[in-house]
Structure formats: structure tokens, C-alpha cells
């Protein structure tokens, strides 16, 4: 399929294509800078290929230029990467945000991290470098030393304003009542209904992508595992798969099955925890207590299976570090009990008028908004987007297992709860299938030498697709771009709350299940 995309692009834009490179299911097409908007628009609108990431690289030592990669997810497991080169002397590129709204934050991220300006961007404010960050300090440029402490300067961040009679602003955060991470929410309200919400994040930017630079592969595995605490497995597997792809490592089938089991265990406890949170936020204390009890049982099961409640320390490049050989019976037994209790709980939850009153029609994300922003995961599937990386770009053992991808159309809190509930049953079924067909083989392939090269690794985390692009040179990470699902989904909250009342904000927020840490890397 990759070849077909290339042929179409060549037929349409022949003279604009400078270079092409194919490896596995990825095709890198370098094009002239001037043509990039047209080509991206062609892929996006003509082929319905969603834009799943944009990232820059500092290749000045190799080619004398910066590179920008636009990543599209094509049909039949193809990734199309449109690449442009940007000269240091003319650090600008044309923004595609007005054609593809999902490009918004990526382009602003590149502006802050690399100092490359997206011309014509509808919102050219800084995103990650705050106003006290000095001009011209761009952390992901290779000549920016990791220990640099730029001087703090004075500056101001201008919020969008809604004005009119009786319109008030409610600033919330960055410090919140619960022990959660920082984020600012600026509501404009007329009475209780929300007229506008503007979010501001990145208060605790950790520079993870800078940390990855020059790190050895075996250490980087653990950094990836700790980017987003409750999506550890999804992140580490995505990273390992990218490295394995570069090196052509054949991961033993048994390891692939174990990874699949771990990823579904992760989905189970996350979804159960999210449902507990939704019950808490509609003051259904009984449901919250029971869902939290079930989540705790799952965490204890995780500890039994892997030694870690958050399933950490299991994955490595080449496979997994521990076998689950004698644990099959207990996993199956506990999950079948869990299924009965979970079903009971969901029946009580959905039958309770005090719950359905609060979650039906609340926090709607319409299908066109979800598609435009490239919202991912359960949130997208609750808004009618039938997409799941496990099916679109199969990895680990998913192509050998049967599962359904639940899709709802309403786009409200109820639909998001239903998607998660349905996915819980699917996850249990996937684990059962994987355990009953667990192949006999090694659990880890020997890795003798790490080759240079670049590739994508991807997983469907509980929150949605997680994409890694890893570039290795001389046994070290040259660049590791991490795209967490929350980076796509945060902006959807600005739309979800419109026409809702302020007291429904917490429940809408919870139903989106967003991560601060995964977003704010």
C-alpha cells in the first residue's frame, strides 16, 4: 500500500518530490518546502489519511538543515511521512493548521522547541516556552546544552477574551484542589453556561525529548516507561517496538503474547479507574467505591503477574524480562470474577437516574470536531470515529486475536462511559484468548548490536494511540519524538464544555481521561 501512496503523490506532484525512502510499512517522501501544504491537504482530504504527528529534527550536522516530518496514517497499515528541509537562514515554514486543524499544537511546539516559525498559523502564541523564557532559546536544537538555564525575562500571556453584558471570567488553576498536576482553565461564562474555555498547560515541562538525546537504548526503555505513569506499558512497548523495527529484531511470539496481556491489563485498570472517577464526579459514591475496589483488585493482580502494580519493569528491547508461566490459572479466575462484578456495577450505574441525568448529553464532542482535531482513543470512539491502532496498525499479537472495537455516536459523557465499559469486556476476552494460546518459545530475543536508523513504534494505550519515532545513531538516541494521546485530546475539552454549565466541567474533564504528565513532556 505504501507504494500506491507514493505513486499517487508522484502523479499529482511529480516535480515537487525530491527523495523517497521506504522501510517496512513506512514511506518517507521528501518534498519541496513550498508544496507541503498542498501535499498534506491532498493526503488528508483525498485519502482520508489522518495526520497523527508532526515533528522536527535538527539535522544541521548531517544535511545543514532542519527537517519537519508530517506523519499520516494510511490504509492497510501504511505510514506516509512527508518531509521538508528548512534552511537555518530562513527558519520558516507554511502552517497547515488552516487546512488540517490537528496540526495546531504540533506547529506551535516546533516553533518553541526548534525556533522554526509556522507562517500563517491562526494562533502564533507560544505554547511550551512560557513568557518568562528568553527569546531565541530553543531547547531541542542540538546546540542548546541540556544544562542551560536561560535568564528569566518579563513577558505577558494574552488570553482570548469574551466580552459582553454579564460575561464573567472564572480562572481555575494551575493549582487544583486535588493532588493532580498543574493546568490553567479560563472560563468565560454568562451565569452558569460556559461561553468559552481556554486551557493553558505545560507548567511543568520536563524536557523528556531532550533527556532522550544521547541516552543509551537500555536506559531509554525506562525513561519511556515513566513518561505517563498509568500508561507505562503502552509507552514502553511503543518505544521497544520502534527499536526492534530499526534493528530487525524478531521478538519471540510468546513475548508478543505477554506484551498483549500486559497492555490489556493496563487498559482494564485504567478504564475501571476512569469509571470510578466519573461515578465520583456525579456524586454516586456507592458506584465510585465499588469501581475503586475493583480497580484495587486489578492493581493487586498486576502486582501478582509482574511484581509491579503499574506493570513496570517487564518490557525490554527484544521481548519481556519475566515469564508469566505459572500465573495463568489465577489470572483467569480473577478476571472471570471481575467480569461478573463489573457487569453488576455497570448495570447499577446505567440504571441509576441520578447518574444518567448527569451524563446523558453532557459534554458533547461532535464527530466533525473530533475528526478535525484528530481526537484519539475511547473519546474518539464515543464520537463515532471507528479507529483503533490495534486494528489499523496491528502490533504484538493483536492480529492473531479476535476483538471488537466499540463505537458510539453520541459523543457525550455517557457514550464515553459506554465505550470504556465495552472495552473492558473486550480486554478480558483478549487476555483469555492470549492465555489459552500462549505459544511456547523464548521470551526475549538476544540483542547483540544496535543499528543506526529510524522507525515508528505505536500502541493503543488506554487513552488512545501512542506514537514513538526513534532515531538511533552510534548506539545512542539521536531523537525520540513521543506523541501521547493526551496531546491530541486536550484541545477537545474546549469544545466539549461549550453550552454546558460550570458544575459539569469536572465530570466532562474526567470522562475525557486526560493526562497532564503525558502531555507535558
Amino acid at each position, binding site marked *: 500500500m505504501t507504494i500506491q501512496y507514493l505513486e499517487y503523490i508522484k502523479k499529482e506532484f511529480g516535480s515537487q518530490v525530491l527523495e523517497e525512502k521506504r522501510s517496512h510499512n513506512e514511506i518517507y517522501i521528501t518534498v519541496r518546502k513550498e508544496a507541503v501544504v498542498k501535499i498534506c491537504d491532498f493526503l488528508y482530504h483525498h485519502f482520508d489519511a489522518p495526520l497523527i504527528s508532526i515533528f522536527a529534527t535538527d539535522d544541521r550536522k548531517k544535511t545543514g538543515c532542519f527537517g519537519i516530518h508530517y506523519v499520516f496514517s494510511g490504509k492497510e497499515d501504511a505510514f506516509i511521512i512527508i518531509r521538508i528541509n528548512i534552511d537555518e537562514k530562513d527558519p520558516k515554514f507554511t502552517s497547515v493548521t488552516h487546512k488540517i486543524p490537528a496540526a495546531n499544537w504540533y506547529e506551535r511546539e516546533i516553533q518553541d522547541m526548534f525556533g522554526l516559525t509556522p507562517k500563517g498559523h491562526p494562533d502564533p502564541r507560544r505554547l511550551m516556552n512560557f513568557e518568562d523564557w528568553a527569546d531565541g532559546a530553543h531547547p531541542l536544537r542540538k546546540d542548546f546544552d541540556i544544562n542551560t538555564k536561560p535568564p528569566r525575562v518579563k513577558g505577558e500571556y494574552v488570553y482570548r477574551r469574551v466580552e459582553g453584558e454579564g460575561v464573567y471570567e472564572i480562572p481555575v488553576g494551575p493549582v487544583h484542589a486535588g493532588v493532580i498536576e498543574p493546568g490553567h482553565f479560563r472560563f468565560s461564562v454568562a451565569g452558569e453556561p460556559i461561553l468559552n474555555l481556554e486551557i493553558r498547560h505545560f507548567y511543568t515541562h520536563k524536557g523528556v525529548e531532550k533527556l532522550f538525546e544521547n541516552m543509551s537504548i537500555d536506559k531509554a526503555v*525506562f525513561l519511556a516507561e*515513566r513518561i505517563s505513569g498509568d500508561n507505562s506499558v503502552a509507552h514502553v512497548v511503543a518505544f521497544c517496538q520502534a527499536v526492534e523495527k530499526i534493528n530487525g529484531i524478531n521478538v519471540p511470539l510468546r513475548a508478543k503474547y505477554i506484551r498483549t496481556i500486559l497492555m490489556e491489563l493496563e487498559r482494564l485498570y485504567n478504564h475501571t479507574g476512569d469509571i470510578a472517577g466519573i461515578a465520583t464526579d456525579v456524586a454516586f459514591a456507592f458506584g465510585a467505591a*465499588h469501581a475503586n475496589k475493583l480497580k484495587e483488585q486489578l492493581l493487586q493482580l498486576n*502486582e*501478582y503477574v509482574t*511484581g*509491579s502494580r503499574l506493570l513496570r*519493569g517487564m518490557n525490554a528491547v527484544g521481548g519481556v524480562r519475566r515469564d508469566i508461566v505459572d500465573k495463568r490459572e489465577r489470572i483467569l479466575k480473577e478476571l472471570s470474577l471481575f467480569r461478573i462484578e463489573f457487569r453488576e456495577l455497570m448495570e447499577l450505574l446505567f440504571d441509576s437516574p441520578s447518574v444518567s441525568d448527569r451524563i446523558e448529553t453532557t459534554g458533547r464532542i461532535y464527530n466533525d470536531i473530533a475528526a478535525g482535531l484528530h481526537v484519539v482513543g475511547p473519546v474518539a470512539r464515543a464520537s463515532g470515529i471507528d479507529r483503533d491502532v490495534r486494528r489499523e496498525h496491528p502490533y504484538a499479537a493483536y492480529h492473531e486475536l479476535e476483538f471488537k472495537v466499540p463505537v458510539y455516536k453520541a459523543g457525550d459523557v455517557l457514550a464515553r462511559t459506554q465505550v470504556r465499559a465495552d472495552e473492558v469486556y473486550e480486554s478480558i476476552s483478549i487476555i483469555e484468548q492470549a492465555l489459552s494460546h500462549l505459544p511456547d518459545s523464548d521470551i526475549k530475543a538476544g540483542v547483540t548490536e544496535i543499528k543506526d536508523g529510524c522507525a515508528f513504534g505505536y500502541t493503543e494505550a488506554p487513552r488512545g494511540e501512542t506514537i514513538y519515532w526513534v532515531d538511533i545513531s552510534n548506539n545512542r538516541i539521536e531523537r525520540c519524538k513521543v506523541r501521547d494521546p493526551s496531546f491530541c485530546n486536550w484541545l477537545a475539552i474546549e469544545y466539549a464544555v461549550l453550552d454546558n454549565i460550570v458544575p459539569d466541567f469536572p465530570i466532562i474533564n474526567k470522562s475525557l481521561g486526560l493526562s497532564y504528565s503525558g502531555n507535558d513532556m
Partner: protein
Amino acid sequence: MFKILIKTLKTGRQTTKYPEKPDIPSAGFRGKTELAAEKCTYCGKCVSACPANVIRQNEENGEKTLTVSYCGCIFCGRCEEVCPNGAIKLTQEYELASKTKEDLLAGIRRNS
């Protein structure tokens, strides 16, 4: 309403008597790292493998020291994996809270 009541009664109390009754972690749990002075050869493999850089090795006036700080330890078990002599092991111990950073430092030494 009745369904909720029945479910509540059926579930009963779920909390445990911790800390009076100790909570023992699963067999594969990775907790506090322990060093065995008699087995360690100070080869430095754990030092270079540690992703959190919390294992340090020093040599001063002919005395070799190896320290582990639990402050930054992520309990990944790489040190245990790479040690050729079984001198470093992750135990089941997890109650590591302490008031000073010094309390979170463990070390072994040897005069050569």
C-alpha cells in the same frame, strides 16, 4: 435502591488491618536494593547499567565504596540483572519512608 443495599451488604468490609497486620507483596515484587559486601567485586557494571544513576562507586586512599540511594531508585532491577556475582538484589521491603536523605543511602566498602 434495594439492589445497592444488597450489593453493599454482600461486599462487606474490604479494608485490611495494615499496618498492624503486615501487607506482604507478591513474590516478584521489586523493593529495596541490598548489597552483599562479600560478593561484590566492584566491577562497576551496576553503576553503568543504572538508568536513574543512583549507584555510585568511588575509590579513595585505597578504599573502594559502592553506594545506592533509594531517593532516586526506580526499582527496575537492572543492577540485579547485570551483576555477575549476585551481589546486588532487590528485596521485598517497601516501607522506605525516611526523614533524611542520608537514611536513604546504603553502601559497602572494601580496603584493597
